[in-house]
């Protein structure tokens, strides 16, 4: 070669590298397996455990293990195991779709603010700041209380209040990246603004956005549980938070009615955050090169 600096490396695509780093981490893989397991339980589980979560199948407050109900029954005599299996579907679905909504709004606002600057940035960031000051749970409570508690309204409410962090991260990444020379080079070789935003800058800003979005999924699940705990849940479907909320009054008499669904939430969100940490390690080029 011409130069004294030698770089001898096989040609690997970065994406492949990311997967390799990710799958090398035990905790990340464990998290992913748990998450897949829970999703499978939620979506296929009811086929194997057909007890209807709304049916009053036995006496109220039957303790776990007794009378053939593994996790016991609640204050109306409904099977808690069935509630947890069926609740997984709703909790995970709401978690992912709410995070998707936030991600969509946040990336949109953040990227335009960061790219265009000036009054566009000024206006969009004022809006973002506003949503950061707003106590999110209360605002979502107001939305759900006024517009009714359906799965859709809850998802939209959670999505509408949690995007500020994504917008901030996207914007700061855009501000950093748009000053880099390769963006100028791309502009001077004839790329238009949309191509610059979506094909040049966004892929380079993706890493922290993906990590933040992964964390948002977990946050959305706890958020939904919080709303359900306060009594704001869709009465027609069952979710983990709702199980805790409806048994809230009886916690001292039957602790297991709130412990088990809580454990379900805990494990799910924990798995998500392990995956998020794994993604962070895999996507962060600073850590990768070390």
């Amino acid at each position, binding site marked *: 070669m011409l130069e004294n600096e030698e770089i001898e490396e096989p040609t690997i695509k970065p994406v492949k590298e990311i997967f390799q780093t990710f799958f090398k981490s035990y905790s990340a893989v464990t998290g992913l397996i748990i998450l897949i397991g829970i999703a499978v339980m939620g979506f296929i589980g009811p086929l194997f455990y057909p007890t209807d979560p709304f049916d009053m199948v036995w006496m109220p407050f039957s303790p776990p293990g007794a009378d053939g109900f593994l996790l016991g029954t609640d204050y109306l005599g409904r099977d808690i195991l069935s509630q947890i299996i069926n609740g997984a579907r709703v909790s995970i679905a709401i978690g992912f779709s709410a995070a998707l909504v936030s991600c969509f709004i946040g990336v949109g606002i953040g990227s335009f603010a960061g790219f265009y600057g000036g009054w566009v940035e000024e206006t969009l960031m004022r809006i973002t700041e506003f949503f950061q*000051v707003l106590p999110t749970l209360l605002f979502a409570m107001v939305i759900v209380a006024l517009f009714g508690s359906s799965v859709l309204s809850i998802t939209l409410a959670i999505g509408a209040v949690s995007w500020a962090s994504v917008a901030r991260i996207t914007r700061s990444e855009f501000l950093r990246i748009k000053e880099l020379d390769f963006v100028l080079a791309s502009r001077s070789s004839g790329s238009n603004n949309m191509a610059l935003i979506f094909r040049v800058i966004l892929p380079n800003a993706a890493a922290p956005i993906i990590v933040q979005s992964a964390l948002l999924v977990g946050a959305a699940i706890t958020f939904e549980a919080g709303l359900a705990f306060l009594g704001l849940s869709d009465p027609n479907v069952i979710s983990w938070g709702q199980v805790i909320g409806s048994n809230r009054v009886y916690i001292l008499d039957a602790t297991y009615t709130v412990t088990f669904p809580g454990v379900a939430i805990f494990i799910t969100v924990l798995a998500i955050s392990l995956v998020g940490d794994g993604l962070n390690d895999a996507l962060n080029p600073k850590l990768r090169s070390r």
Partner: protein
Amino acid sequence: MLLVLLVVVVLNFLMLHLAPGDIADTIAQTMGGADEQDMAELRKQYGLDQPFFIQLFNYVVRVALLDFGHSHFYNLPVFDLIMERFPATLLLVFSAQILSLFVGILLGVYAAQNPNGLSSLFVNMFSLFGYAAPVFWTGILLLIAFSLHIPIFPVSGMRDITIESGNFFVHFFDVLRHLFLPMITLASIFFAYYSRLCRASMLEVLGADFVRTAKAKGLSKKDVLLKHALKNSLSPVITFAGLSFSAVVSGAILVETVYSWPGLGTLAFNSIISRDTPVLLGILIFSTLMVTVGNLLTDLTLKALDPRIKI
């Protein structure tokens, strides 16, 4: 700051306006139904027959004059109701925030000295826990533990009504005893975040050029750490604490509900059950105010910490 409040008020109005059903419907419902004429009468009484912008203007003016409407459930002005509950929430939010910041920074600094040690492991584990455990669930677990197994702290309310007489300190310690569990519960999540962030920021600062300079000056490890590194690593933690204020208030609502802490949270919970919308909207405005004040305090702290920041 005023702008933020104004926007909240306008947003409130918009939501009221867009939501299916209006005050007249709600009142009619509680009265057990009303005919068309009564409804029209009611709407006129509440100014609902006027054009959109006039209604909006009236609403904003009323809020500015501290008239948040009337709670039909408590049959009291919303403002009075909120003022009665506000101090309890304020106490809970700020005590939890300060406690978690203090302990979080302490632990973060300690863990950063040994990035692969036991304390770092603890910080990482705890931050996972803080993120994954819903705050109301943590509260319920603590409540079960402290009422059924180790009954040393009261698990409900803010005062012991059996204590009637006694000087200031008797009451003060009574409130403090009641505050303990809600505060710990709320602080646990944020303590987890802050300690992890502080550890990370401390680790980054310890790799900075000026820390190398400080070492090259011959300063002892303690001086390098506590004088040069700590002050620099605080900014991101404080900034994040400021951003977390709205989350702390949200958490407080759930924690209050668990421990029947007589603040805005329990009020909000009750007003949902009784469909008392004006109260809910009033609480939203007040807690936004609380968060803005919290942010202002954060900005002032940051300014005091870093000479480069101008307000």
